[in-house]
């Protein structure tokens, strides 16, 4: 039985997405960045297949090959415990990508509705929410995250929670700005006129329309959050050994940087490339949504 699909008129968001895809496809740098990001995501998903030594990638030690320099056997060398660095980098792509995406996602989920509420309601609700957000913004974000991470205990999950707590106000600010201008528009006034509840207006009509500026900011922030996660792991507050993590690998390799340079150098290149890709992509997205800024 064949039921013809109902024809749906293109929504604002679908059109935006199509526009973004078009621009990215035409901008070589953005295209390369997108490919790099997708490649790293694939590597992370298929780590057990891609990694030459999957067990070592997950942490199994291999004492005989300690500090093995880069060679045919270990393309990028081996670390202090004889583990293949390439495999560790491949497994490290999992926390390096998944966790920052999760952090930004949760920060958006907390921050954006609050911002939409503040912008839509105005008055004392706006005052209270924004003053609280301002307080969190008064801290250098990473410093606040470090203090929270230390006080709730070390570990990848704790570091992620700490980052969410120090990151949400950025999205509150953006969503509020968008909501303030949206609430004057006819479709919102029309909804109010027919008696739609405030909660429905905020979640169904305001929030979906704040998506584009938030998406841009989230892409730009992903690079920063990856750096922050790496930093937390580097000083010992993030991932704990023997789990593979780029920041932790740099920290472990730091002691041997002058002689066994490969231990820290290659994970560093991995972080740099991924962050660079997110920043380039974020730049392009920003150009699309805020053309004024770059002529």
């Amino acid at each position, binding site marked *: 039985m064949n039921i013809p699909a109902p024809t749906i008129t293109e929504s604002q968001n679908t059109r935006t997405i199509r526009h973004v895809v078009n621009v990215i496809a035409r901008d070589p740098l953005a295209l390369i960045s997108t490919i790099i990001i997708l490649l790293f995501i694939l590597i992370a998903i298929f780590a057990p297949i891609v990694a030459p030594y999957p067990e070592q990638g997950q942490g199994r030690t291999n004492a005989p090959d300690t500090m093995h320099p880069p060679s045919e056997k270990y393309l990028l060398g081996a670390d202090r415990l004889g583990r293949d660095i390439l495999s560790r980098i491949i497994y490290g792509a999992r926390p390096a990508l998944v966790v920052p995406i999760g952090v930004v996602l949760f920060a958006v989920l907390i921050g954006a509705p609050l911002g939409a509420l503040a912008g839509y309601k105005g008055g004392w609700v706006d005052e209270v929410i924004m003053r609280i957000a301002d307080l969190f913004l008064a*801290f*250098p974000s990473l410093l*606040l995250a*470090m*203090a929270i991470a*230390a006080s709730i205990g070390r570990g990848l999950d704790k570091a992620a929670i700490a980052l969410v707590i120090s990151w949400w106000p950025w999205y509150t600010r953006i969503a509020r700005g968008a909501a303030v201008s949206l609430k004057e528009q006819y479709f919102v006034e029309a909804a109010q006129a027919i008696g739609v509840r405030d909660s429905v207006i905020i979640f169904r009509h305001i929030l979906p329309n704040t998506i584009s500026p938030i998406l841009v900011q989230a892409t730009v922030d992903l690079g920063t959050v990856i750096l922050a996660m790496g930093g937390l792991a580097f*000083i010992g507050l993030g991932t704990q050994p023997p789990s593979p993590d780029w920041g932790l690998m740099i920290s472990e390799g*730091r002691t041997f940087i002058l002689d066994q340079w490969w231990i820290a150098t290659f994970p560093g290149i991995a972080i740099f490339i991924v962050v660079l890709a997110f920043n380039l992509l974020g*730049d392009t997205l920003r150009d699309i949504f805020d053309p004024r800024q770059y002529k």
Partner: protein
Amino acid sequence: MRIFEFIFRRLLTALFVLVGVSIITFSISHVVPSDPAALYLGSTKARPEDLERIRIKLGLDRPLPVQYAIYMRDLLHGDLGTSIATKRPVLQELSSRLPATLELLFVGMFIAILIGVPLGVVSARWQGTWADVFVRIISIVGVSMPAFYLGLLMQIVFFRNLQLFPLSGRVDSDLRFTSPIDPITSFFLIDSFLTLNWAALKDVFLHLVLPAFTLAAYPIGLIARMNRAAMLEVLGQDYIRTARAYGIRQWIITYWYALKNAISPTLTVIGLTVAYALTGTFFVEVIFNWPGLGLFTVRSLLALDYPAIMGMTLLGASGYVIINLIVDLLQTAIDPRIRLK
């Protein structure tokens, strides 16, 4: 009188923010952890009677508002508690390390502004040319490079391979005997200059180069990028076209008439980058073994020395609030249009 009213209002806001900041730091140490006493002891497996003793000693058995009042009272008396690791007052620990970090921070930011602003100007002036592309690459690489990685690369290249700069530390360990620095301001560059101690000045300078440039990389990227955007906006305005029509030379237009109006938005970014640079010093200090606040904070974080952690968090946030205040006031001084808002 309007300007005084403006300054007063800004000061009042800053004060409110600082009170809020103290509530958050209080919460991090007293509310967030499931058991602050265990945090204090540095272990969750401490004996119950020890935990109880600590709870009473720290006043954790009292209601939260009372605890906060005590916390605030001590804070206003300059008492940030005693470091668990060093057993010395936290305030003393922080203030003795502040100059080393500030010296690094100032030099780093100075380098960042000195390089970042002209890069932004050049990039905007020759928009779309290879110079613009080059600057954009520098700025995007600058903001994408982790400080804790760049520092290591610097050490490999400039210490191991080229042997141009020392590996780490603030001064050479022999300097203490050959030409000791008289700590007048505890800013070693200034101290050695004031006492005409040239050997020390050279040594201090050489030790500063790698950490300062490592720290400056991120701010350079941000400043260049924002200054470019600000310059582009200004260069497109009518008065610039008028200036051109009058036959004023292009470099005067760019570096004087345009830059003057692009400085104000750039200042906002500089204020913002100081916050990044502040946490940047943590990584730089760890890598270059720089005896400042960052190294102390990282050690405290790992040792769960929470009076020290709270002191540093409070200091960092206060410093950030004050910097933003200064930036705001500077902007009103530079750009009278802001006062009218």
